[in-house]
């Protein structure tokens, strides 16, 4: 349940991010979105819970921005951030829940 709530709020943030993108300069918006995604990604790495998909989406975001496709790049960065946050939520939940599977 906790994960779903977190994800719903993340999706809301993502939609809000897209709305503001139309107003500010696209490169600035990308940099902001990318910085947030990178911060979440670094936290996931530190917790040893990073997902390969987060890494892939981050790289794809950077590539799209380099090609000048900022709308796409921002969407990708936001996806990476959502994935990183979901991986962090997973790790936190597993700190207690891993014991359920133990054979006794």
């Amino acid at each position, binding site marked *: *349940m*906790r*994960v*779903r709530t977190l*994800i719903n709020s*993340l*999706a809301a943030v*993502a939609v809000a991010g897209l709305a503001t993108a139309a107003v500010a300069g696209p490169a600035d918006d990308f940099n902001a979105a990318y910085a947030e995604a990178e911060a979440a990604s670094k936290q996931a*790495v530190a917790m*040893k*819970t*990073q*997902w*390969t*998909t987060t*890494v892939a989406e981050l790289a794809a975001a950077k590539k799209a921005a380099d090609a000048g496709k900022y709308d796409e790049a921002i*969407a990708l960065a*936001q*996806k990476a951030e*959502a*994935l990183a946050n*979901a*991986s962090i*939520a*997973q*790790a936190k*939940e*597993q700190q*207690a*829940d*891993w*014991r*359920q*599977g*133990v*054979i*006794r």
Partner: protein
Amino acid sequence: MLREILVLGAIAVGAAQTALAADTVDPAVEAKAFRAYFTDRFPKVTLDDFVNGPYSMDEGLRKQWKEIEEFPPYEFAVDKGKEMFATPFANGKTYGDCFSERGVGIRQNYPYFDPKSGQVITLDVALNQCREANGEKPLSFTGDDMAALTAYMAYTSRGKRFDIKLPDDPRARAAYQKGEEYFYTRRGQLNFSCASCHVQSAGNHIRTEVLAPALGIMAAMPIYRSEWGSMGTVSRRLTTCNSQVRAVPLAPEDELYRDVEYFLSYMGNGLPVSGPGARP
């Protein structure tokens, strides 16, 4: 994005929230329960046969395996390992000088807990320690040379029974528990633990492959995988397992990987060495 995240959400919701107190863990009791889980679930499989992984559970696979074992593709790696093992370092010493019994027939004693460093030492780490003590550069933990050396050492130990010691040392106990936690912790975007595949789903088909049971899974290492077309180390297996569930792997022979090998090898105590193994 939504679709992928919803998948995760659904899995997370499906998980129950019961957290058990595990302060009073007795590894010997756990190992017994671990073994009983598999022998109860697969009553037709003899205990020793679990070291043959998926081939103990599926007739069609077993037939193909037997055909491949008639002239196994890992023979080249074993021969290469044997040659490397006997070739002196620049200082004239050999691998045999670093090990008891000159390194022959000792696979079943690895990994072990080293009271000096307070860490788990796997055979792969011991081989690199041997190299470095003799002024040689360490080998890649995921490379063909390490796979060949460990394949040879396993080959000379075939049939010997695993004898993993858990000394009365809180650090050894902690390593065991960290390995256990790693084994049961869900990770990666697919939200799988090692146990998801190799305990709960052992013997099941994923597409048309059969998942190996966790009991005795270390006994076949290193393994020649048809998928790789080559011999691969324990590190190669663990890192690819992580990638397959979309988790970024740890560094090869990371402390946690060594701990999980320690845990799994302890669970398989008494089972015979079957490595090097051939696997799909």
